[in-house]
Every structure is written in structure tokens, then in C-alpha cells.
């Protein structure tokens, strides 16, 4: 009884800390994106709020909080209101299984004269829940995020939003598949789908060395999954006028906005865990390494946004199914053969 | 320049004589004034036989108080010889004034004629889709007519 209470409390603390960390990093991420895009595009970016404009995200957040929340007289009101919540919450889900640091607590603690073993359920490690099927869990919940966007676009009673929603449905369908296949190679090499074990297995060499193709494919699929340039078809302001979130305002919009950036962080975090050695690295504490790696990938996302135009909807689909999917399959088979005979 | 003049002279000579009312030259630009009945025929000859394949513009001029009132002006360009030709005719008398449409010869005439209809109220017979183009449906009057007031409508 007491043991499960400790488990709940520790997990809760970890979750709260993690969620607030993610929120802060989203804020930093938005600021970084605007500053780096500004740097790429020869302009300043935000530089008025606070030193170097670092408080810009706070200002934006306050502004969005204070905005009038316009609820449209849509037919499916429940779904219309629920959709941003779904988008925001599902974006956070995968973090449950992502190990963000090594040990963060001693193996045992003594509470009220009783010794609790924290190694059970990996409570002392930097992961909320070290699920035995971590990768599967991540794959499963990350595809849930499509519902937020889909329902939002569908319930908005707006043709542009509707088109955006239709796009996201087909986009997810084609990219979720080879996203899964592209990381199978890693699982084969490790022989486990527990996230912590995958990280441990990269102690000597990152998997990106063994699985360069897998990494590239994962990143492409990740861009599509996070709906970022060049795959930001669902919102593309130039065609659909922001697509699915056109009809949302105030905090509902903020949730979508938040979800988009959380998504980028999630994709980067998964990539770091599976291919770039997770929290492992010399000299610095493990959590710091994790943050640095995720930040690098995040900046890569921004860099791509400043460089590429947007692909066309049908081209995205055909590239996904005709080229990337077979390549991912070939990569999977080749890895299988290597694992079997070497 | 002389070559061009000869060319246009040749053009005028080969047109059916009954179709041509007159031709005017002003600042090196030739205007052919043709009868309305032979407008399509003349334009077709110009397009097919003399290389005036590019219809630059269709517009109208309101000769208020004259009868017939509306001049319709076609500007043609020959890409091979790089020369301009203006063909002019009148819309029929009466209200609304009418004239055959040249959309069958050039698709580009579509919007030009719609604009003329919008601004002058000239009806182009045989136009596939004669609607107002710049002003909205239900607009009263045709603003480029000379009897349309500039202000204080």
C-alpha cells in the first residue's frame, strides 16, 4: 500500500517537473524559432520584451490568455471545444516513456522509518514510466495527436479547416507507417523495446552510426508527423489560411500552438533516445546532455523551415508511399540480415 | 518603316473593298474603319492571312451625340512583322448597342468584351458569358458613357 503510494507520488512529482520543463522549453523554443528565423532572414526577430526579447513568449502567452475566447455557433460544439484539449494532451503523452536522464535519485530512501526500494519500476531513473513496451507505447500515442487536428478541422464548419483536416488524416496515414518501420532497425539491434535499454545499448556507439538511413527516414517522417515545413500542409497559411486552427482563438489556439511545439520536442526527444545515445555523454550530467541534443534537433527543425518551400499535397503522399516506404522496408530487411548473421 | 507601310497597304488592298469604310494614318499608326457586318470577316482575314495573331485590346469610345454612338476599337499586333493595326467599327444604333463578339477568334477578347459591356453597355452577341466584370451585378448604369456623371450620382 505504502509502496504504491510512493510510486504514485514520485511519478507525479516527475510528471509535474517534466511537464513544466516542457512548457518552459516550448516557450524557449518559440523564442528560439523566431530569433533564429530572424537571423536566417536578415531581420531582428523579437527584441523588445526583456533583454534580447527573451520574455516575448511570456508576453505572447499573457496576450493569448487575455484574448476574447470566441466560440463559434458550430454544429458539433463538444468536439469543437474538446479538439484543442486532445491536441495539447496527446502531444505530451509520449514523454511518459522517454528517458530524459540517468539516475536522479538514490536506490533506496527511508521514509517514516521504512526503507523503500526505488529501483523497482525504475523510480530512481530519469523516466516517468519505464514501460517494457516503451517504443510501442510511443508509436501508439503519438499517432493519437492526429485526432486533435482532425476533429478541430472537421468541427470548425469551415471549408479551409476541413481541407486541412483531410490533409492531416492522409498525411498521418502515410507517414505513421514508415515512421514505425524506420525505427525497427534500432529495436532489432538492441533486441528490446524498452526505452531505457535502448539508451544503455548506445553506451559505446550511437545507433545513428549503424542506422544512418533509419535516422534520415525517421527525421523525414518526424517532419511530417510534427507538420513542420516542408510538410506543414495542414496549416499552410498561403493556401488554407492556417487550415485547421483558423476558427480558434485565445487559449484554444494557444493549445494548438503549444501542441505543435511540444510535438517538435517529442519528435526530437525520440530521435535523440533512439539514434543519438539518449542522455548519454561525457563530462556533463545526463539530463543536460539530453537537453543539448534535443535543442540541436529543434534548431535543425527551425533551420529547415528557413530553407525549404512547402511540398505539394499529392507529392508528399507519393514520395511517402513510392520511395520512402520501400526504402524503409529495405533498410529493415538489411538490418535483419545483418543482425542475424553478424 | 517603309516596308511596314507597304505591308499595311497590301493588307488594305486585299481586304474586301465593301467592308472598308476608310483608313486613317496618324503618327505612323494606321486605323482601318470597317463596317460592322464585315467585322468578323476582316478580323479573320487579318488573323489568318496577315499574321495579326495577337489581339492586344478591345475597347470602346463613346461618341456622345453622334449616331451610331459607340465606336469599338480593336488593336492587333503582328508578331512576325512587329506592327500594330487598329481596326475600328461601330456598335449598332439603339439601346442596347450590339456588336458581334470576337471570342471565337481570340479567347482573350472574353474579358475585354465583358469590360466593354460593363463600362459602356455594349452587348457582344455570341459572347459565351457576358456579365459585368469590374462592377457588381445590379450596378445601375455604365460609368464610362459620357452621360454618366463623374460625381453626384
Amino acid at each position, binding site marked *: 500500500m505504502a509502496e504504491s503510494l510512493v510510486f504514485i507520488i514520485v511519478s507525479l512529482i516527475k510528471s509535474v517537473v517534466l511537464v513544466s520543463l516542457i512548457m518552459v522549453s516550448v516557450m524557449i523554443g518559440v523564442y528560439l524559432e523566431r530569433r533564429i*528565423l530572424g537571423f*536566417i*532572414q*536578415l*531581420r531582428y526577430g523579437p527584441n523588445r520584451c526583456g533583454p534580447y526579447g527573451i520574455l516575448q513568449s511570456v508576453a505572447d502567452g499573457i496576450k493569448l490568455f487575455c484574448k476574447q475566447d470566441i466560440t463559434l455557433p458550430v454544429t458539433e460544439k463538444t468536439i469543437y471545444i474538446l479538439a484543442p484539449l486532445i491536441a495539447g494532451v496527446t502531444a505530451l503523452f509520449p514523454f511518459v516513456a522517454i528517458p530524459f536522464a540517468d539516475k536522479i535519485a538514490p536506490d533506496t530512501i527511508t521514509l517514516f522509518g521504512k526503507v523503500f526500494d526505488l529501483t523497482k519500476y525504475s523510480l530512481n531513473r530519469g523516466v516517468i514510466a519505464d514501460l517494457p513496451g516503451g517504443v510501442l507505447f510511443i508509436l501508439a500515442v503519438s499517432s493519437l495527436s492526429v485526432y486533435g487536428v482532425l476533429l478541430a478541422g472537421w468541427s470548425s464548419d469551415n*471549408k*479551409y479547416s476541413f*481541407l486541412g483536416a483531410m*490533409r492531416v488524416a492522409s498525411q498521418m496515414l502515410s507517414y505513421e507507417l514508415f515512421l514505425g518501420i524506420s525505427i525497427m532497425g534500432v529495436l532489432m539491434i538492441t533486441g528490446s523495446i524498452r526505452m531505457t535499454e535502448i539508451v544503455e545499448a548506445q553506451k559505446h556507439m550511437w545507433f545513428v552510426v549503424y542506422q544512418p538511413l533509419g535516422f534520415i527516414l525517421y527525421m523525414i517522417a518526424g517532419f511530417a508527423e510534427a507538420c513542420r515545413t*516542408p510538410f*506543414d500542409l495542414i496549416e*499552410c*497559411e*498561403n*493556401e488554407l*489560411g492556417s487550415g485547421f486552427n483558423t476558427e480558434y482563438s485565445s487559449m484554444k489556439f494557444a493549445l494548438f500552438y503549444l501542441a505543435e511545439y511540444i510535438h517538435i520536442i517529442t519528435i526530437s526527444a525520440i530521435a535523440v533516445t533512439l539514434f543519438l545515445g539518449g542522455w548519454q555523454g561525457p563530462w556533463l550530467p545526463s539530463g543536460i546532455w539530453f537537453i543539448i541534443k534535443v535543442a540541436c534537433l529543434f534548431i535543425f527543425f527551425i533551420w529547415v*523551415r*528557413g*530553407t*525549404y*518551400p*512547402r*511540398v*505539394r*499535397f*499529392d*507529392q508528399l503522399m507519393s514520395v511517402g508511399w513510392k520511395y520512402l516506404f520501400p526504402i524503409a522496408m529495405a533498410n529493415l530487411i538489411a538490418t535483419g540480415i545483418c543482425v542475424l548473421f553478424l | 518603316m517603309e516596308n511596314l507601310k507597304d505591308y499595311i497597304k497590301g493588307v488594305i488592298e486585299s481586304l474586301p473593298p465593301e467592308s472598308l469604310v476608310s483608313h486613317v494614318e*496618324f*503618327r505612323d*499608326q494606321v*486605323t482601318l474603319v470597317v463596317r460592322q457586318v464585315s467585322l468578323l470577316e476582316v478580323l479573320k482575314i487579318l488573323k489568318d492571312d496577315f499574321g495579326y*495573331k*495577337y*489581339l*492586344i*485590346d478591345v*475597347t470602346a*469610345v*463613346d461618341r456622345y451625340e453622334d449616331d451610331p454612338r459607340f465606336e469599338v*476599337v480593336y*488593336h492587333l499586333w503582328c*508578331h512576325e512583322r*512587329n506592327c*500594330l493595326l*487598329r481596326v475600328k467599327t461601330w456598335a449598332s444604333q439603339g439601346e442596347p448597342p450590339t456588336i458581334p463578339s470576337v471570342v471565337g477568334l*481570340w*479567347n*482573350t477578347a472574353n*474579358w*475585354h468584351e465583358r*469590360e466593354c459591356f460593363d463600362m459602356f453597355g455594349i452587348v457582344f452577341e455570341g459572347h459565351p458569358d457576358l456579365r*459585368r*466584370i*469590374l*462592377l*457588381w451585378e445590379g450596378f445601375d448604369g455604365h*460609368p*464610362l458613357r459620357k452621360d*454618366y456623371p*463623374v460625381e453626384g450620382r
Partner: protein
Amino acid sequence: MRKEIIKLNVGPQHPSTHGVLRLLVELEGEVVVSCDPDIGYLHRGIEKLMENRTYHRSIPLTERVDYLAGAANSLGYVLAVERLLGISEIPERARYIRVIVAELTRIASHLFWLATHGHDLGAMTPLFYALRDREIIMDFFETWAGKRLFPNMFRVGGVARDFPDGLEQEIKKFALELPQRMRDYETLLTKNPIWINRTKGVGVLTKEEVLDYGLSGPMARGSGLNFDIRRVDPYLGYDEFEFVVPLGENGDTYDRYLIRLEEMRQSCNIILQAVDRLPKGDIMIEDYQVAFPPKDKVINGEYLIPHYLLVVKGFKAPKGEIFHHTEAPKGELGFYIVSDGSEHPYRVKIRTPSFVNLQVISKLAKGRLLSDLIALIGTIDIVLADVDR
């Protein structure tokens, strides 16, 4: 399976319709079944206004026809009026200044096109690069005329103000630098596979279709039709400048993109030649019946009276009609002026390139995707003020 057609109203408030264009689009899935442009939201009745103004007072109005290339429009108008009056020679310096300004305007317009076209297709960065360079041109205009978008310095018989000291060298420096900077833009787009996929094979026009739809400018040259009015019907002595008229082969959006980029380089080329040859001297003809006397002489009664008459009453143009076309950045800009011998034109028709070029969109968009429609609006390079007048 039941198929339903979605009627989509693209515009008049839409981020990539470049103004107040409204497209009534019927979609089947994302495929455009029909596309009907609805224009006229920016109709200001410039033609009607011009009928009631003197010839000089219309010059500022014409600049507002295509607000991204203001000087190119007033140039066309001024040349048409000069032809109507029979003025064939203007002072050399004025002529070269006109050429330089016209080409700078062309570059500015094309840069803005590059910015918006890129942004329509999702490439955000070229927008800022191109607008930076456009800003330099705007600064030139500001130095010269005090105004940025509409210099309003062309007059019948010359230009109103000479270039200030040192501006020629600045322009020369810019014309030398721009082609190098454009290499940066090209690294972002020209060989980018996504850009190529988005633009190649989109909006293909054959030569016959170009003639049929009366297209001009880069829209015509993209399909290989060698039609540049600066070459085929030279004005302002363009025949003495060396420049290449770039032609496309496939007539698609990509070719038109390459052509406009090349035109910017050629414009730089023309500017360099014009700056080098720019002579010293007058900038206005001395026929004070039609041209304004120089400002410093107006205190003298000999000049004051004609100046006064010109401002208050204007000049009388001979009876007749004239069509003059120039190569505006977006295509053929024609002014058809009918004069009845009075101080006001009897009728002015402005044949704007955007109006004619836009018409082809319903044909090009049919059977393409909604995303292609956006690319097509960009490649036609319209300005809605130019369409509606």
C-alpha cells in the same frame, strides 16, 4: 461512391491572392474543377477620372495603376502623350534617366514577385532577401523624388527633377551587386527539388495558347514567344542597349521563374550601360507650350505665364488617337488615348498586363490541385490594382 463538389471562396481576403482577388473555386477533393475569378474590388475608375483631367494631372493617377511598378506606368502614359503631341526627341539625359528608372522599377517589381511567389509556395526566406534589395531601390527613388513607391517625376517632355549628386554611382553599385546577391536566392530555390517539383509542369502554356489568350511579358516569353516590346517596338532608344531577352522552353511556372530572374540581371545590365552613358545636360524640352519651364526661371515673367497656363489650363493635344505600348514589368502596358483637340483626353483606355494575364487562370487551374492554384496566382504575377484600374 458519392462525390461531392466543394465550393470554395478563395479571397477576397486570402493570404496569397495578392490583393483583393476573389476566386470562386469548385473542388472535387483537392482538385479544381472550375475556377472563376471575380475582380473589381479595387476598381477606382481611373479611366473615367482621366477624361476630366488635363494631361499632366493624370500622371499621378497612372502611377497608381500598378502600385508595385509605379514609374513604369507613368512612363507608358507620358510616352503615349508625347507620341500624341508628336514629340519624338527629348533631352538625352532625361531619356537615360527614364531608362534607368524604368529598369529599376522592373527590378523592384520582379523582386516583389520573387518574394511573394516564394512565400506562396512556402519558402519564407527569399521574401526577406528580396524585399531587402527592393528597399534599396525604394531608397533611390526617395533620394531622387522624395517618394518611394510613386516617384511621379516623369513629365511630358522630360523628367521633373534631375538625379541628385552621387545617385548614379549608388545605382551603379547596386546594379553590380544585385546579380551576385541573386545567386544567394537561387541557391535557395532554383535547384531545390521541392521548388522544382512545385513549379515544373505547373501551368504549362503553349505558344498558341499564349497568342489565343493575348498574354504578354514573362507569361509569353516563358512559352518561347519572343515578344519584348523593348526589342520589337523600341521606345526610349532601347535598341541601343545590349540585353538578352530570355525565353523559356516548356512554358511552365519554373521557366517563368527563371525568366524573371534573368530579366532582373538583364535590367542590371541595361542600368549599367545607361549610367555609363548618362550625359550632362537638360532634362526637359524647351517647348513651354507643353513642358514645364525650370523652377528657378519661373520667377521671370517670360516663363511664369506659360507655367501658369500649363498648370491651370493644361495644353491642347491635336485631334487624333494613339496607342502606345511599353514593356511594363508584368507585360504589355498600353495606353490608348483619343483626343478631341481639347485639354482633356476624350477617352483613355489603359490596357494593363495583369488584367489580360489573369484571364488565363481559369484555364490553367482546371484539373490541378488547390496548391497549384496558389502557384499559378504567383506565376501570373498580378497586382489587383493593375487588374481593376
